[in-house]
C-alpha cells in the first residue's frame, strides 16, 4: 500500500483527492461498517422490528447456546462445509488438469465445462428441483438398479444434505477449476520441461514442481470455497421442504439467520447468530491466510 510513486501534490490537490474518495468512503461507512457495528448492538437486544429494541446484554447468545435449531444449524453447516470444501478442492484441481491437456476442440469442451458457472445459484436450484423430481429423470435413470419408480431425493433426511452438497459442487467445481486453470497457465512451460529433463516422471513433476507453485491459488480456492460454504443459503432455501427440512437436516446457519430475522422476527437472535457466523468465517479465513503465507 502506498508504495507507488505519487504525483507532486499541492495543498489544493489534496482536497481534490479527498473529494474523489469520499463518495466511496461514505458509502462503505453507511452500508458496511455501520451495519456491522449496528448488528453487534442489535445482537444485545430483543427486537421484533415493531416495538423498539430492548437492551438485554448477552442473553441472546446464551439463548442461542441452548437453542436446538441453532446447534443443529451449526452441525448442518459443518457438514455442508466439509462436503463442499475438500471434495471441491480435489475435484476442481483434477478437472482443471484434465481440461488443461491439449486436445482437439479444447476451447469448446472448456466452454461446455464452464456452463454450470453461468446460471445464478437460484436458477441452479430451480433446475435441479426438476431434475431431482421424485418421478424425474434421475429416478428413471437409476430405476433399473433401484427398482423404484419414485425416490424422494430432496425430502429424505439422509439423501437431501448429500444432494445439496452435490448440486453446490456441480456449479462450484467448474468455477474453481477456472481459477486453477488460471494458476496453471501462469506456470511457465519451461519449468515442466526442466523437470522432465531432470528426470522427474509426471507424478514427480506434478507433486514436486507444479503443486508447490500453485500454493497461492490453493489458498485462494480454499478460502473462497470455505467462506462460500459457510454462507450456504440459496440451495437450502429453495430445494428443501419447509426451508431447511426434513427434520431441519438442511437448516444451515445462513438459513437460520434468515428464519430468525424474517420468519420469526427475532432480530436480536438473528443478529447474534450473524455475529457468530462472522466470527467463524473470520477465524477460518485467518487460519487459511496464515497457513498460506509464502516465502518464495
Amino acid at each position, binding site marked *: 500500500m502506498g508504495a507507488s510513486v505519487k504525483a507532486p501534490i499541492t495543498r489544493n490537490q489534496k482536497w481534490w483527492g479527498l473529494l474523489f474518495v469520499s463518495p466511496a468512503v461514505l458509502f462503505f461507512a453507511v452500508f458496511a461498517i455501520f451495519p456491522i457495528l449496528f448488528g453487534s448492538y442489535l445482537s444485545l437486544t430483543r427486537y421484533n422490528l415493531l416495538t423498539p429494541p430492548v437492551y438485554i446484554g448477552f442473553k441472546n447468545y446464551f439463548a442461542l447456546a441452548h437453542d436446538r435449531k441453532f446447534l443443529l444449524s451449526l452441525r448442518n453447516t459443518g457438514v455442508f462445509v466439509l462436503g463442499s470444501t475438500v471434495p471441491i478442492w480435489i475435484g476442481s484441481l483434477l478437472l482443471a488438469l484434465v481440461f488443461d491437456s491439449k486436445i482437439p476442440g479444447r476451447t469448446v469442451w472448456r466452454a461446455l465445462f464452464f456452463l454450470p458457472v453461468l446460471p445464478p445459484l437460484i436458477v441452479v436450484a430451480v433446475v435441479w428441483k426438476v431434475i431431482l423430481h421424485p418421478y424425474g429423470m434421475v429416478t428413471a435413470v437409476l430405476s433399473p438398479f433401484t427398482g423404484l419408480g419414485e425416490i424422494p431425493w430432496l*425430502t429424505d433426511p439422509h439423501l437431501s444434505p448429500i444432494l445439496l452438497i452435490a448440486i453446490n459442487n456441480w456449479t462450484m467445481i467448474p468455477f474453481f477449476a477456472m481459477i486453477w486453470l488460471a494458476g496453471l497457465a501462469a506456470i511457465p512451460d519451461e519449468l515442466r520441461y526442466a523437470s522432465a529433463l531432470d528426470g522427474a516422471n509426471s507424478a514427480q513433476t506434478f507433486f514436486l514442481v507444479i503443486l508447490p507453485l500453485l500454493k497461492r491459488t490453493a489458498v485462494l480456492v480454499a478460502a473462497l470455497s470455505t467462506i462460500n460454504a459457510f454462507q450456504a443459503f440459496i440451495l437450502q432455501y429453495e430445494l428443501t421442504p419447509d426451508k431447511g427440512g426434513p427434520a431441519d437436516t438442511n437448516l444451515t446457519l445462513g438459513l437460520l439467520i434468515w428464519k430468525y430475522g*424474517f420468519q420469526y422476527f427475532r432480530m436480536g437472535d438473528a443478529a447474534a447468530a450473524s455475529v457468530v457466523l462472522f466470527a467463524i468465517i473470520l477465524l477460518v479465513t485467518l487460519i487459511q491466510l496464515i497457513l498460506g503465507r509464502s516465502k518464495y
Partner: protein
Amino acid sequence: MKKQMHELMKRYVLGLIMLAVVAAMLPAGARAVTLELWMHDHPPRIPLDKKIIDEFEKANPDIKVNLTIFPYSTFDQRLQVAFAGGQGPAVFNNVSLNLGQYMASHILAPADLKALGVSSNDELTAKYGVGLNGATIDGKVYGLPTEVSDYLCAANNKLWKAAGLDPAKDAPKTWDDMVKVSEKLTQRDKSGAPVVRGFDFNWTDPVFMWLTFNAMVDQAGGTMVNEATRKVDFDSKEVKKTMQYWSDWVNVHKLGGPQYTGSRDAFLSGQLAIECTVGPWFDSQFEKAGISYSFFPIPRWADAVNDRGFNTYAYFMMVNANADEATRAAAWKFVGFYASHSVDLFNEAGLFTTSPEVAALKGVTNDPVMQMWLAELKKAVYSPRIPGLNEVGDALGRARDRIILQHEDMDKVLSDLNSEAQDIIARQ
C-alpha cells in the same frame, strides 16, 4: 381613479385571503384517503374484489382503494416483512393462525364500531355471524371474516369403487378404521411402493401440524399449547398417541409419508383416494380435475374425549393500527362493506363467512354436504392464537420428522420439543 384602484386592490387581496382560508379548511373535512389493500391470490375471488372496490369507491368518492394480490404461498411472509419494514398496508386479509403474532406486535386496530355503523359487538356478531369469534380477543373485534373454513375428508369415488368400497357406507369413522380403509384402497407396485394411496396426511407445511396434528391431540383430550396460559405440554400421552399413529402410518403400515408430494395435489392427480384438508370450498378444483368425489367427516379417535374434527381457520379482513385515524376509519368502513358481501363471496368465490344471510341461502340449507360441513364447523376450534406459533410449529415439524424419518426415540424427542417450545414462547 387612484382611490378606486386602491379599493379594488384591497378587495382583491381580501378575497385571496378568504380563498386560502377556505382551501385550508376544506381537506380537513373531506381529504381524499387512499387505502392500500393486500389480498392473497384466490382466482375465483379476484373479480369480486374488483367489483366490491368499484362499488365502494362509487359510494365513497373520497376514498380510493388500491388492491394488490399476492401469491398464496408467499403472502404471509410478505405481509409480515412489510409490517416489519413499516410499510404495511392499511387493510389486509389475514389468516387466523397469525393472530397471536400480530396481536403481540400491536399491528391490529380494534374495530371502529362507528365506521362500521353498529353500536355494539353483539350487533356486529348478529350481522356477520359467529365467525367473528375467531378474531375476538379480550372482548375486542380485530377483523371481519372473509372466509371461515374447516376440513372434511373427500373420497375419490372411482378409486373407492375399484377397491370395492362405497364412500356412503364404508367411510371410516375412527382413525383405526382409517388405517383399514386405506390399506384396502392402496395399490402397490412390484417393489411394494404405493402407486395409489388411501389416505395420507398433508405433510407440506408446518401449518398443517397445527390444523391436523394439534386437532388429533385435542380429540384425545390433550392440549399442546394453552392459548390463555401459554402453558406448553408436548410430553403428554395424547401427543404420544397421535405421534405414534402418524409414525405407524408411515413406518408400520407404510401408507404414506412426508416424501410424497402435497396430499391435495396427489388427490387431484388420482394418486390418493382420500384427502382430508379440503371442504366444499374446494369443489371447483375437483371439477376441474374431473374427479367424482364424496365428502365425509374427519374421523375421531375411538375413545375421543372431544368430538371435533380438524382445527378451523379463517381469513379476516383487518386494519393496520399504525395508520392514521382518518385512514383507520375509512379502512373499517371498507372492511364492513366488503364483509357484507358474504352472499357474493359464497356464490361466486365459494367462500363461507357464517353470516345469517349465507346460512339462510337455499344452496346451504338444502345441501347435505354444506349441512355436514356446518355441523363440523360448529364443533371445531381454532389453533392456539399465540405469538411464536410458526416457530413452535417448525419445531413440532422437526420433532415429527426426527421420530418418523430418523427413527429417534419418541420420549426423548418430545421432551426436547417441550423445552424448546417453552423457550420459544417465553422469548416472545
